[in-house]
Structures are given as structure tokens and as C-alpha cells.
């Protein structure tokens, strides 16, 4: 069967089987920004937005997105022109291995569209379906709060951060810049 949907503003048609999951279809088609973390919807690595709502693509049957509008991390900013949420993650040192980050950013973007000025507790609650093993969440939460301010300052929340003047002052403010196995080698590892 085939389905039609809009991905990051482009109309697309996919040949799929009824049992395909959205994550598999996206990744097969080169949208590898969404990551496979659990296949049970429990970790948030594969989060995208479907018709504006955050969704775990690893548990979303692809047949459900026929006719839908899908946004993935690839549709946000580019490396040279980051979306304010992406820029805030960079500037707040809010990512390490980065595997959770596409999902985390998509979830954060959805939050800020729904609630442009969340409290710290609201950010933590919203992100509790998205796991991160590296950061301890602190800098991620700070990044989302920072993104909230940036988007409010620039009035870009409504257009999803697509305005053209973003990011130009964000490049990291302030940056300038022997023993063998038969021995007692307990300090080795």
C-alpha cells in the first residue's frame, strides 16, 4: 500500500506494508535523525511531531500518518542556521553523546509551542518521556528555559522558529575562543 504525508514541508508518498512503524519508514527513507532506543515508546529517542503533536515514531503505525503533517529534526534548523531550541542546547552545553537530542529537541519544541513560558517543573514534566543518560537533565532543562526566552524575545514561537534573524549572536557567548594476567594488576583495567 502507499501513504501520502507531508514531511518537513514536502509532500511525500511512501510504499509501506500495513505493519510498518513510522520510525522504520522514516529511517529507511534517510530521515535518520530520529533514533531507535527501545521500540516500546519508552525512551523518546524517536520523537517527531505529527500534526503538531509530539509522538513516538517507534510505536506509531505508519498507516496512521496517511495524510498527516510530520516534522522531524531534519526540518528544523540547519547546521549554519540553527533553530532557537537547537541553538540553546548548543549554548548551554546541554548535550553529550547526542543520541537522545533529536527526540529531546522535538519534544521541547512541541512543549514551547504549546506553552511558550514553561516553569522549570513544567519543563521537567514535559521531558519525562524523553530519557537522557549523559547529562543528568540539568543542562537540558536550562536549555529549554533559555530557548523559551529566546523565542519570546524574537517572537518566533508562532512560526516555529523559522524567522531569518536567529542564531547570529549565539555562537557560544564568551567563547574565544604491566602486569600480566597472572599477577595482581588490580590497578589495570
Amino acid at each position, binding site marked *: 500500500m502507499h501513504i501520502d504525508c507531508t514531511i518537513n514541508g514536502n509532500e511525500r508518498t511512501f510504499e509501506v506494508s500495513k505493519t510498518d512503524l513510522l520510525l522504520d519508514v522514516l529511517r529507511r527513507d534517510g530521515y535518520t535523525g530520529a533514533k531507535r532506543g527501545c521500540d516500546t515508546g519508552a525512551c523518546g529517542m524517536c520523537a517527531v511531531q505529527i500534526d503538531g503533536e509530539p509522538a513516538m515514531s517507534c510505536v506509531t503505525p505508519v498507516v496512521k500518518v496517511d495524510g498527516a503533517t510530520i516534522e522531524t529534526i531534519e526540518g528544523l534548523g540547519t547546521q549554519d542556521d540553527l533553530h532557537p531550541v537547537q541553538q540553546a542546547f548548543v549554548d548551554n552545553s546541554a548535550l*553529550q553523546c547526542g543520541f537522545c537530542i533529536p527526540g529531546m529537541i522535538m519534544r521541547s519544541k512541541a512543549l514551547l509551542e504549546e506553552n511558550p513560558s514553561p516553569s522549570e517543573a513544567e519543563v521537567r514534566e514535559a521531558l519525562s518521556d524523553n530519557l537522557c543518560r549523559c547529562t543528568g537533565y540539568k543542562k537540558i532543562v536550562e536549555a529549554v528555559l533559555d530557548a523559551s526566552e529566546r523565542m519570546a524575545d524574537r517572537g518566533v514561537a508562532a512560526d516555529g522558529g523559522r524567522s531569518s534573524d536567529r542564531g547570529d549572536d549565539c555562537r557560544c557567548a564568551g567563547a574565544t575562543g604491566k602486569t600480566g594476567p597472572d599477577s595482581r*594488576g588490580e590497578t589495570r583495567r
Partner: protein
Amino acid sequence: MTDPDDPKPDGGTASRSERESPEFEDHPLEWDEPENNDLEPDERASVSRPAQKDDDPKLVTGQAKYTADYEQRFPDLAHAAVVRSEIPHGYVTDVDASAAEGMDAVHAVLTPWSEETPDAKYTSAGQSYPEPSPWDMNVLNDHVRYVGDPIAAVAADDAETARTAADSIEVEYEEDDYVLDPEEAYSEDAPRLFDDDEVENEIVGHDYSRNRMSRIDGEIGDVDDALERDDVHVHETEWETIRQSHAQIEPHTSLAYTDEDDRHVLVTSTQVPNHTRRQLAHLFDIPIRDIRVSKPRVGGGFGGKQAMVVEPIPLALSLAADRPVIYEATREEEFHAMRSRHPMNVRARTAVTEDGSIEAIDLYALSNTGAYGSHGMTVAGNVGSKPMPLYSKVPNARFEADIVHTNTPQTGAMRGYGAPQGTLALEGHLDEVARDLDLDPVEFRQRHYMEVGDLDEIAGMMGGEGAERRIRSCGLDECIERGKEAIGWDALEQPDEEHRHRGIGMALSAQGTGVAGDELGAAQLMMNEDGSFHLHVGGVDIGTGADTAFIQIAAEVLGCEETDIVIKSSDTDVTPFDYGAYASSTTYISGMAVKKAAEDAKGRILYWGSKLLEEPESNLDTGDGTVYSEETGASVSLEEIGYEAAYGHDEREHILGKGTHCTEESPPPFAAQFADVTVDEETGEFDVNKLVVAVDCGVAINPGMAEGQVEGANHMSYEMAVCEGITFDDEGRAEVTSFDEYDWPTAAETPTIESILVETHEPTGPFGAKSVAEVPTNTVPPALSNAIREAVGVRITDMPITAAKIKSALEADD
């Protein structure tokens, strides 16, 4: 003991060891440090400045490529699935794979007896050579020792077909008795997991008649004598830790193929590319030169990928199927068939005089290494050798450990590497002793802990060569002072409700930086004609930002922008040798190799600068993208030098630098942890109001990244204190197979974590750096146990700390 007139350069104030002692010559306090290594903050252009992480723009846009993202590049890629033991112990008597073999889309099926299945014994531990872990397993096993042991593997067109084919394989077993409890396993009557002839590379202290893979011990002074003295109190406590999962977000993933140049290539999510290459060569009897291990972006490791866990399977399948094969572990496999932290029982004993002088510390650990022995001996060694040296002034110290097998899943390296288990026991124990003696727990520790100048003999007591060390940087005092202030130590307000009580607990920790005498890092630097550079490093960035730290170190030396350096790390065909990302060694060892490579290149750059400026090299230095003269102010850009060197009329040179670093040093970073908790004495429920951890990591090469390491490590440490970890049913089947069941703290469930970087200067490290990523993994379990003791007077010694345990202890106390 203390000489106030002998202040140490970084704030330490005393030294136990006399400078004229014989040991001093082997471990001098004054380190022969290059002039440019000790930069004041205002002299730093790149190091310890908040440089943007090099790969961040790719990571936030989803463009960074992890192993699974390479699928698109191989149109004929097959996917692997593995058949795993459904019994805890026994022998596979028959594998009927005929159904799988008959499927159209199946390209290879391997059993323990297939020709393409390697039959050599090996260890999955990704360690240096010779490996300090026993060779006790096969890629596919017919003697299975845990639920999850790999038996057969399939490669098929897609993951679903591979799984269907794997599920169609029928395995017949002859079941054997099994044992899950380490104390039961360590008895002569227990079922035996290994016959002696089933293990090669046996480890010191092995006794397979009692399921013991190793026993280790070390002592300084005479602990028994001290424990029997009339003037001491002997205190004894016992502690138990959880089986923690690495739960790294990217599953173990590995893609294998043979390329057009007959190179066997592994694109794999690993912390140890060079060790993996060597181990694969051993297993497959292929020359090291013919194997290429390439590490793309890695989605976290935490020690779980300091192991060759999955790589042999796709390689064997790709050889059998003659096509590329990828194996991506499922999340369920991650919990029951990959690796975990060694659960341990640790007994702490001290002999303490009435006035609070610790005369002896005695630690004993019983470590459950699971079905196989990877990292078993070395992790257990670190239970003693990491935390005990913190109290370097204690004259008598002993550590012993038995490492035993059970029919449970495999354990391995994990961030902290034994130190979390030892730190819980020691820091919980000392807190309890202080309370018994009515001493201030902080002052009690301060009387005995490390200071600059101390000769740390405890670190060397178990015989690791070069492990004994001189302490040349120590910020413990400042860590405690700033931690106390941040947690509000002196102004704690109690809740209004009478049944709720608030308390602060604290714990200290020390780790190492690399493995003394057993590390190697190397780097190469090439200058392009436009003045930019390519930096090739064996060092492995598994998400910590190591690549960025390397760039900052090189940029500091070369006087260029970080963006003028292109880095390639961790591809064994391209980058120099490196032991890998473990033991908190990356910035210290590989970073020093980078520094040396940059210095080497800088020497040639100054030569060319001297030619162009017609001034002696001794007048010149690099900075702001130029070579400039401190005498005349004249300068020439690195770009001009690059073009001149490449295209000059009378002389030409490709400017190259190389650096290799090995060392006998392993300076400890330090941490002081504080936990603020409110406990309800009626229910036992507790709220962790705040965690504060102050860390002395020397100079933080990138402060934002270092804070991130501290906060992430502390979160993992908090999990050790409050999460059940991986639990098993009566047959050793993991009850945790998903993130939901593992139930580690989410963003909403995580208390506020405040990280404090305390800067000292470690003269043996690049620009003064020590390690940062492990030491904050050790401290929350004891600090939280101590806080609850402070709040409501009960002591929880077995992790995790739960409301039910507190309530039960309170009721027993009544």
C-alpha cells in the same frame, strides 16, 4: 604531622611524608613541567574557555551518524538476530536450524558448531594486553551459563525476518543445576560453572571448584595487629550494591563487511577500537593489519562498550553470508545479555582510638561477576584502590576480594569501576564511626585525608606497578568548603511537621586518572597550506566531548582558532594507537599525546616563522593565528607559513607533528558530595531536596563539558542509591527488559544537582587537567545513606534506599 610553614602550590597545607624519604626520589613532588603547561586563567586562549562542542551542530540537527545510521550506505545489508539460552545453566545438545536455513531471505545461520563460528576462547573485556580477564567464553556457546548466553545467530534481509528466523531455531538442552546467589556460589557444594579446562588465561586466585575466578589482596602495615590493640574501638559494617545497568541510550550496534581492498571493516559503537581489533584478530585468526575498526558517533558507553560485546557476531555472519551485516542489540538484550555493574557485598572494618584517630582500615568485597569473568578482578581491585587512598594518612590498610561466578548475566566495566561499591562502604562506614564516637564527620575525615605532598602507598598496596603515587594536586578542602556553602550546611531549617525531618549527609571520593603504567595515547597533526590543521587521534570520543577537548588543547599550543582544526578520531586504519576511552584517561593520556603532537608541529611552524620574519626562533611564539615576535611585534600568519612551507622556492616541507604519551602517573581527582533529604518518619518516604557535588578535576579543559560530566555522573550515582537495578526471577531470568521496568529517575524525578568545579593544577596533566567523569559516580549512595541517618537516625546499608526499608528500620529502632 602538619607544617603550616610548608604551603603547597595549590592550597594544600601539609605533608605526611618527609621530603628526604627514600620514596621521594621515585615520586618527586616537584614535577618537571614544561613552562607552557601552567597557564594562568588570563593567559589561556582556548583551554578552560567555553568552546562549543565540535560535533554539536551535527548532533542537534540530526546529521551526526551513529553506527545504525550507516545502514543506508549498504544496499545489500543483512540484519542479525541472536538465539539466546533460555536456561540458566546446561549444555546445548542439539540445534535444529533447518526452518531458518530454508527461509528465502535468510543469508546465514551460525551455531556453535558452524565452520564460520570462531571456536577460540576469549574475554569480552576490552582491556590492554595481556588481558587481566580470563578467556572463558566463546562467540556462540554450547555450555550455557545464564539466561541470555548466545547460542546461534542469523543474518537476513531485515531485522524482522532475522528475528523470525532466529525464533524458528529449536534448541535442545541438558539442564544442569544453577546458582544465583554469590555467597552460595562460593561454596564447595555449589553447582560448578567451569571446569578448569574450560578457561584459558586464568587469573590470580582462581578456584573453579568454588566458582571463584579470582582472589586479590593487599596490605600495608599490620591491620590485624592494629585491630587487636587495647586502645582502639573496632567498628564493622556491611554494605550491598545493586546490579546497575549502563542503559546507554544507543544500543550496542556493530556493522561488519569486507571491502574492495579485502579489509575486514567494523563500523562499531565501541570505547576500545584498538583492543577490539586485537581481539577480533585473535578470535578469527586474521592478522591485525587486515582488520579495520572505525568508530562513528557513539551514543554513550559508560564502560558497557569497553567490551567486545557484539562485534564478533556480525563479522562471523558477514563472512558466512558474503555481504555486510549489522547487529543492533534490542533494548531487552541490553538488560539481560549485555553488561552491568558488578553487584557486591562489601564489609568495612576500622580500628579507631577514643579520640578519633583511625589506626586501620580493612575492606573485604565479595563480587558477583556473573557467568563470565570480564573485568572481574580489576573492578574488584578498584573497590579498594580507589576509595581507600583517600585516607592516605591511615598507617595500616588492607583490602581483599573474592570474585565469584553465578548463573546470572555478564558484568563488566562501568563508570566508577568498583569505586562506587567501595565508596559506599567506606564513606558510609566512616560516617557511622564518627557518630559512634560523637565526632564531626567532616573533621573526622579531614584528620586523615590526602593532602598535597602525601605519598599514597595505599594506591600501590595491591601490587599494580607504578600505582604508588605522590599527590601533587588536591582540592579536597575547597571542595568541602564550597559544597557546604552550596548545600546550606550551617543553616538547615527543619520542616514544620513534627514527623518530617531534614538532614544533610556528605561523602568524599577519589578516583584515578588513567591506569598508572598501563596506558598509551598517540596523535598526529598535519598542517594544510591555508594554515588549518588535521588532527588524528586514537583517543575515543563516546559522547563526552573528548574530540573538542583535543581540539582545544591543540589550538592552545598552535595559537589558532578551534575551527581551524579538523579532527578525525578512532579509526584504526587512519588514527594512531590508543588504549581507548576508559579509566578516566582520555583527556589526560590522549590529550597529552595531542599536546605533544601540537608542540612537535609548532616547532616546525616556528622554524618557518623564523625564516619569514628573519628573527631567531627564540623570539617567536604562536597566537591569534600567527607566529609573532615578542621582540619586534612583527608577525606572519599561519596561512602564509602554510603556503610557504608547501610551495616555497628554496625549501619545502609538509609540517607534521606527532605525539605519544605513556605515564606511570595516575593522579586522583577528588569530590565532596552533599545530599539534603527530608524523611517522613511515619512512612519512611523521603524527598531528596538537593544534591551538591564539588569536584577537583585540575584544570577543566572545557568547563561546560566538565560540568555536564559531573552532573551526568551524579545522576547515575543517584540512580545507584534509589533504583532497584536489574533483578532476576528464580531461574536467573532478568525481570527488567525495558526502560519502564528499569525505572531510573526521569527529568521530573531527578533532584536538583549542583555541580561545582574546584580548580587545581595537576602538573602531570595537559595544562593541569586531571579526570572528571568517574569520581562523581561514586558518592550519592553513601551521602544519601548518611543524610537519612542524620535526619531520622536509621542506617540503610543495602541499596537501593527505599521508603519501605527506612520505615522498617525505624520500626525496628523503636
